[in-house]
């Protein structure tokens, strides 16, 4: 007989139901299937009304983050075999409003992304013309920020963050890591502008360094590390400004 597995899936349609509920589906168990394959099987073969986001199914588009047995996971990179034969519980990422079924509302993150100015900022008159060629950047300089540039915006770190769960004014792990990605880029001169957001009360000081964000990150971005580095450099800024005003000119 074919092996099967049960998935208990969070269902909620705001225009039709007052309360979320769980619905259990039985799917074939295959060694090489990921949780997303099982969910696609449900959508195609059992219940067309289930809504969720997905696209690349190779861990790079960042669409398919969900809670799998209470842990934030990319479902395209989470294998059924690691749970078999137990039932798997699939829910939308925690810490976000639910739009429908497994689809979260991520407006807040999109807003914060823009806030931290995730683009190269050059001082007035210091932009290099295209004819001047590329900015030189050594492999060592690239290494300074490379890790923070690997974020796929999958939102797992927000779902894991205990601070964001209590206070969604917190800028949060991925956005801070991204700010740090530009701050550490040798081509960028915009750190001061970003620090206004990052070092504010909604920013890095709220992080209690639980480090859950870095644990769940599927791309080893280490947002917790970015937050710590950001704290250290902000503190140095403060010392420079207050204690040594003549040397306190920020770069």
């Amino acid at each position: 007989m074919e092996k099967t597995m049960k998935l208990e899936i969070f269902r909620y349609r705001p225009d039709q139901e007052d309360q979320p509920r769980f619905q259990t589906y039985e799917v074939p168990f295959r060694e090489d299937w990921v949780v997303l394959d099982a969910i696609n099987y449900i959508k195609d073969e059992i219940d067309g009304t289930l809504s969720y986001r997905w696209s690349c199914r190779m861990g790079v588009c960042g669409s398919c983050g969900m809670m799998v047995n209470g842990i934030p996971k990319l479902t395209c990179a989470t294998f059924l075999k690691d749970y078999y034969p137990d039932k798997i519980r699939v829910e939308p990422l925690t810490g976000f409003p639910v739009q429908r079924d497994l689809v979260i509302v991520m407006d807040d993150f999109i807003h914060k992304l823009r806030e931290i100015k995730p683009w190269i900022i050059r001082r007035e008159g210091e932009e290099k013309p295209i004819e001047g060629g590329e900015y030189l950047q050594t492999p060592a300089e690239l290494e300074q920020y490379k890790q923070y540039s690997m974020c796929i915006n999958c939102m797992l770190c927000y779902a894991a963050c205990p601070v964001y769960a209590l206070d969604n004014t917190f800028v949060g792990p991925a956005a801070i890591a991204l700010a740090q990605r530009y701050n550490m880029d040798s081509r960028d001169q915009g750190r001061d502008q970003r620090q206004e957001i990052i070092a504010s009360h909604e920013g890095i000081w709220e992080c209690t360094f639980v480090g859950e964000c870095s644990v769940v990150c599927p791309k080893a971005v280490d947002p917790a590390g970015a937050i710590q580095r950001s704290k250290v450099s902000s503190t140095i800024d403060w010392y420079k400004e207050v204690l040594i005003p003549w040397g306190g000119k920020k770069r």
Partner: protein
Amino acid sequence: MGNYETYKYDVVVVGGGGAGLRAAIAVAETNPALKVALVSKVYPMRSHTVSAEGGAAAVIKENDSFDEHCSDTILGSDWLADQDAVELFVKEAPSEMIQLEHWGCPWSREPNGKVAVRPFGGMKIERTWFAADKTGFHMLHTLYQTSLKYDNVTHFDEWFATKVLVENGRCQGITALELRSGQIRVIAGKAVIICTGGAGRVFPFTTNGAIKTGDGMVMAYRAGVALKDMEFVQYHPTGLPGTGILITEAARGEGGILVNKDGYRYLQDYDLGKPLEVTDSRHPVKKTMELGPRDRLSLAFMKEVEKGRTLSGAYGEYVHLDLRHLGEKKVDKKIPFVRELSTKYAGIDPVYEPIPVRPVVHYMMGGVDTDIDGAASMPGLFAAGEAACVSINGANRLGSNSLTELLVFGAIAGRAAARFATEHPELDLTALQKQGADEQERIAKNFIRKDGGYERVATLRQEMTRTMESGAGIYRSETSLKETCNKLAELRGRFSNILIEDRSLSFNTELTSALELDLMLDVAQAIAHSALARTESRGSHQRTDYPDRNDEKFLKHSLAFRTDGAPRIEYKDVIITRWPPAERVYGR
């Protein structure tokens, strides 16, 4: 479905991948007074540009030249590319790539800080810029993040475009389904740029993400614009069996080899040159063996299958991509994503074991017929990127030209659309609103409030993809294509009985799946009928009944026009400037 609203913009960009973002930024920079709507059915960073791995080609090194890049591209295209477009593309490529560098793209570097390049298939000189093996990911995030800096670009994220609106003989906007509310809205625009990517999902086995369903191609097609060269579908030679996950050509650019079940480098039997030992410092030799063009490598695989020299697995026949001789250090530095993907999805660590691979549908050379400015035949309508066919790719695209193409022609189309919008300020808003109401009624009647449907979306989709593979795959013939054309006509008929169980307005993905299937059936028909009409073999289009190239009859682009029945196929001449057609030679 409630009331509808009208949004008014100067330029509407449909699609938030590389081409769409580049186009939107080009409009914003051309004239900061112009308002741009960037409409995407997913958040832009989910767009499939994200999955591109190997790199983007542009001439920047002293040993290279524009003419070399042109001639490689034209040879790769089997002379079906328009040479004026190729020359423009090659000339614009370096400044576009430098622009992206200035915007922060983390290109891999040489020790002196200059941008590094790597060899790629079909390219005589190494000119492929790369960001390790996540080039598309980094380009997309750089473009998306940079786009946030422009106040005159408004993002309509998770809005599913359904129709191009034509009034007074020109394109004046689109209708789109706001996924959150389930409402159809009119987004009026003095110019519209289609940047919705390809349609690999019409095939069952593809590297393409779920979202690549040809939406924008069909929006233009239904507005009367031709789809050009749709029969040319690229199979990438190295996908993981089962999942279709792409193993980048950069793996071969860095020295990886392809071997059959006997450990033999079979490409030497298919007129692709002779292999050098992997320990030879001259390996890999550009434009030979593993660095031949994708169409020839995929064909060689099929011949190996016929000879019984491939391996068999749970997901059919495959060969081995062997990277072991590269060593752990090089793999981790140059192609770490290859290691991550192989290990996770195939259970194979390429440092120690060869990777099982087989050809997989990867890219549409064809698309919306545009001129060199990205303008379609419908005034006010433009297209760029994989959705468009300019054409620089002809019958076979060279690896690492597509990422550059979406920058070059995204920017060109953006600037052209900005000019058009400035010159055509008036909008027929009342008529557009009427069209919006009609579209809302169509979606309601045919889908969301439809009763008595019984055909499941997934069933029809599976039958469509199956017939595309069996009849319009790597090898085609009149018999196989006719069978596919008939099957597609049957599916088109059955589609009118589509079953929609989900009556919710909020984020109804059963509805969007049905809309996508509707669009894909049009794409599939355009591909199959264009392939049936082209009775020659050229590049990726291989007819077993017409094995030779026929320049006399078919040095022409095919143009598919939509009708109520089978598409009407016409032809137009290829533009030849300096590279007259010749034998397509690799490795000798």
